[in-house]
């Protein structure tokens, strides 16, 4: 299973963290610092896997962002690379050629997408189209709720005028 997902920028800033195994806040900070140190210092031609405390961390760099996933010893590293790519493609499709800034200012959206892709540390959906459809449906639910709220407040505003 995937124990956690990390997105770290080249400067070592955290852009997204998702923990599927329990880690206290202190441990989280430690893990991020430790892995950031290891991964950011690895050369570009090296393999995408790092042995770390009896686990394997699979990472891949896209532009200025490192996508990292921590898995068990007997999990399939090559598949996890595919999952990372899958995630990136979905983000790309959603934001329209995604960049780091999109993920900073819309970090909650990135989490929503991740939650449609992974659950309990396992892959949930292999179709990019399905994920996009589910996210769109939920976004529109939010939009409708907002419109309703504003129209109600308009009515109240007019009534109290």
């Amino acid at each position: 299973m995937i124990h956690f997902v990390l997105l770290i920028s080249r400067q070592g800033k955290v852009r997204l963290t998702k923990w599927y195994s329990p880690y206290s806040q202190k441990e989280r900070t430690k893990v991020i610092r430790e892995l950031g140190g290891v991964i950011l210092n690895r050369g570009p031609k090296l393999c995408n896997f790092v042995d770390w405390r009896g686990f394997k961390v699979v990472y891949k760099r896209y532009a200025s962002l490192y996508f990292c996933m921590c898995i068990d010893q007997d999990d399939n590293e090559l598949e996890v690379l595919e999952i990372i790519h899958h995630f990136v493609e979905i983000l790309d499709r959603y934001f329209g050629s995604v960049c780091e800034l999109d993920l900073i200012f819309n970090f909650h959206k990135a989490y929503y997408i991740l939650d449609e892709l992974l659950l309990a540390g396992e892959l949930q959906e292999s179709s990019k189209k399905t994920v996009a459809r589910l996210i769109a449906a939920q976004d529109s639910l939010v939009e409708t709720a907002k419109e309703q709220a504003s129209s109600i407040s308009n009515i109240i505003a007019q009534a109290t005028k």
Partner: protein
Amino acid sequence: MIGDMIRAIRACKTAAEERAVVRKECAAIRASINEDDQDYRHRNLAKLMFIQMLGYPTHFGQMECLKLIASAGFPEKRIGYLGLMLLLDERQEVLMLVTNSLKQDLNHSNQYIVGLALCALGNICSAEMARDLAPEVERLLQFRDPNIRKKAALCSIRIIKKVPALAENFINCAASLLKEKHHGVLITGVQLCADLCKVSSEALEYFRKKCTEGLVRTLRDIVNSPYSPEYDISGITDPYLHIRLLKLLRILGQGDADASDRMTDILAQVATKTESNKNAGNAILYECVETIMSIEDDGGLRVLAINILGKFLSNRDNNIRYVALNMLMRATTLDAQAVQRHRATILDCVKDSDASIRKRALDLLYLLVNDNNVKHLIKELIEYLEVSDQEFKGDLTAKICSLVEKFSSEKIWYIDQMLKVLSEAGNFVKDEVWHALIVVISNASDLHGYTIRALYRAFLTSTEQETLVRVAVWCIGEYGDMLVNNVGMLDIEDPITVTECDAVDAVEVAIKRHTSDLTTKAMALIALLKLSSRFPSYSERIKGIIVQNKGNVVLELQQRSIEFNHILQKHPKFRSALVERMPVLDEATFSGRRAGSLPTAISTSSGAPSNHPNGIAKPATAPIPDFLDLSSDDVPAPSSSGGDFLQDLLGVDLSPTPAPSGADMPPKASTDVLLDLLSIGMPLPVQTGLSASDILSSSQDDKAPFVNFNGLASLSSLSANATSPANAAPMMDLLDGRGPGPQKSEENGQAYPSLVAYESSSLRVMFNFSKQRGSPQTTLIQATFTNLSSNVYNDFLFQAAVPKFLQLHLDPASSNTLPASGDGSITQNLKVTNSQHGKKSLVMRVRIAYKTNNKDVLEERQINNFPQNL
């Protein structure tokens, strides 16, 4: 606005500025929370999530998540659940409060809200929540919308991992998911089945019987399916599904010839037909190889698998090489010969520039070494040791040392290789390795001269390697005369001229080196004492060096130098008898001890960190300082025999624990290698007692020993006075032992009833008490642990703590595995010294940790019912 806050934080140029901004924002959020402002609630939470991601504390926002989740609208719930998953984890008790909201949302009419609840449950639920909400999830496995079914399937995985007992409820629903067409449901269903098999053998049997056929069919369909744009990844339809199916087939085929037989055709097809030019294809091949190697098979498929790995290994992509090494490691148990063929390539990988690949390759190479190739491979590895990275040296050194020891058929080869390692990377060599080297040197009497000269040469060139210095100093002390006189020259040696002065110089260098630690300096002091008798003409100079340490700030060294000086000045008569060459160290005793300490060594180097499910090694928490009263900080736990080993060897930094192992030393010819090795260990009274008994046994003279002993006793009076009466007891024992019979100490003690110290449904702890003669304060307790459950306990660890007026010494346990159903037990000896004997009775807090069914269990208990007057 959240965007404004992010911009403000991004604009900060220093960490201090950022902290200030965050502090201000947090204050505003707190104020808003206190006002209970509903409109801003979700904005506040969004901000908190961002702040939390930066690593700041956000616990004060936890209740806001619960409020948002409890509100009616989808937008509020969506952000609320997201916050819940980010700000909380299963260990927080607040989480229990959300159980009710979750239950309602799991029954909600809006399927997206059901989805949110499932997602939160699957990501962070605790065992209690899993128990409470399992029926809801089970029902949702049959929900009309496939997107809910797939979430429910993954959620079930979390539930059965938390509460394995619930597994059987899910078996039937899981099996029906396997018949679905929707890929999401299929992927998650297959995953659920795989996890069910791990926790329940009943599930495994069921799926094996009922589902193998269907799974093979599904895999065949997906392998042969035409192009489908929705699931296509570089020409393959849904590789994720491929991989999960292969994984489940592996579990079903393992150990079952019939099931294995049914899947061989499709495995052969996947192994031969899958395109290997893209990552997705390789991922499938990799999984397929693993399945082939795990299932029961006659060998035809295995050849195919090993060939794929061979191709992987020669791939130019580092990722592929990495997984190939990984997999070849598992293949060594199946077909070592086939893996041997790739030895040269693997050796190249050890020297790769990529640390991950190097590590894998080294692990693999380690398994491949045998009698035929060991000399060649060790030569290569030692050559590489010279140029390798610092970070890699530790690993590499450990592996080389272990191999050299394992295949040390010729002593001279072993000594040569070890000296090379010591001079190249001595600082990375573990204690037990150089201890073993000394034992071997001591046993190779025909090589003493050769070894000491080789060591001397190495010492001159690489003084910065601590362990090399130690071994060299020890050998100079023992065999210094052979160094000077070129005794036992071998043909292969170059002649070397070393004067007595040079030998003393070498030891002086060692003792004066800034980087030398206490052990090295202590060893050097002893070597000097020995040399003073070997080279009488340098006796004065040696005395000078020893005297220089009289003012050393380390008490141990100070005391030694004063004592040694005393010997040199006042007791020249028996100096030579005292510092005679050590009797040959007994290899059997040493290796026996090592065998005891070895598992601990392994578990501390690799196992321990991974014991914790998330890879965070927790520091051994000692609630009461006495917990680890006998060992220095780096010894993992009192129960490890590794600790004992170190303690025996060098008691230098120990508190004056009363005679840890001295009391049960048989007074016959001492074979206690480690004590002899460095007689500087141990609190003093015991140590002098022991060395006296050594002399006794070696000199075979009936009268002399008493003289010696008394001489030593008087010279050690300085410290003997300072120690408590309890410390003197062992010495008494030793003196007694000189008398008519050997030790007969313990059974003389008063009898005490044994005590069931602790009993739970899973474990019973019995204490048997006995007293040591002559020390009423000290109680020896033999603890016996019995497993009352039907599961084996692994990594069993007993710890105990006592209040200040008690002193506790824990011996290593007899084992760390406790067989099931009372079928055998672990024993462990404790020694408690009660400084308030007669006034207060014993009290103890115990903590028992073990692993059963891969779960860590911790039991704690205070024991107050000790018999009186202990």
